[in-house]
């Protein structure tokens, strides 16, 4: 069964360092989402791509976060510099088409120390 791949699964980084997460959606899925989930809360949408274009990044802290999906396939989310409050699970999801289910990856657990 096709899956959304994310790496790394776990990342520990020091405050002020740069960190990057990678996501490879299911083949053929044009829409890709990045979420941040703090323990005990629901996933918070950070950025949404349609192919290679950003269609919504209103919740992305643009002073330190960036996201790209250059060829409309895999995507990278970067944080620079990381802060203690960035410790969370970062989830990637993709959707094939209209009103269909979203498939989520296993996530990257980030700990900033």
């Amino acid at each position: 069964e096709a899956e959304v791949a994310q790496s790394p699964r776990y990342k520990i980084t020091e405050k002020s360092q740069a960190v990057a997460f990678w996501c490879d959606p299911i083949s053929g899925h044009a829409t890709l989402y990045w979420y941040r989930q703090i323990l005990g809360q629901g996933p918070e949408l950070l950025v949404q791509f349609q192919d290679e274009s950003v269609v919504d990044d209103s919740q992305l802290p643009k002073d330190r976060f960036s996201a790209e999906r250059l060829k409309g396939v895999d995507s990278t989310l970067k944080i620079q510099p990381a802060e203690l409050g960035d410790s969370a699970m970062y989830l990637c999801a993709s959707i094939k088409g209209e009103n269909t289910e979203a498939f989520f990856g296993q996530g990257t657990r980030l700990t900033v120390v």
Partner: protein
Amino acid sequence: LAKTTQPISMDSYEGQEVNITCSHNNIATNDYITWYQQFPSQGPRFIIQGYKTKVTNEVASLFIPADRKSSTLSLPRVSLSDTAVYYCLVGDWTTDSWGKLQFGAGTQVVVTP
């Protein structure tokens, strides 16, 4: 986006039916109702989606009244493995609208022996 309201938590015993109601008073004509399940340290997983009346699949049923201002997810004969957080999402994810896949706080369901 239609705002959703659902109970914070629900407790149940094994073998019982669990019904989680979600309120979405401002649902739009083109909006679908979708439910996701999330286990700790995993990404959410699609359960069921509907537009009106009743939808049933192998794991759950979704009841939607005629006014569509609420919906009820029904989990028949729950087991310990159904302990999870359940999210109700309302939105129109058509290609033209590029709708946000926005999660709320969800309902923590705890199933005990």
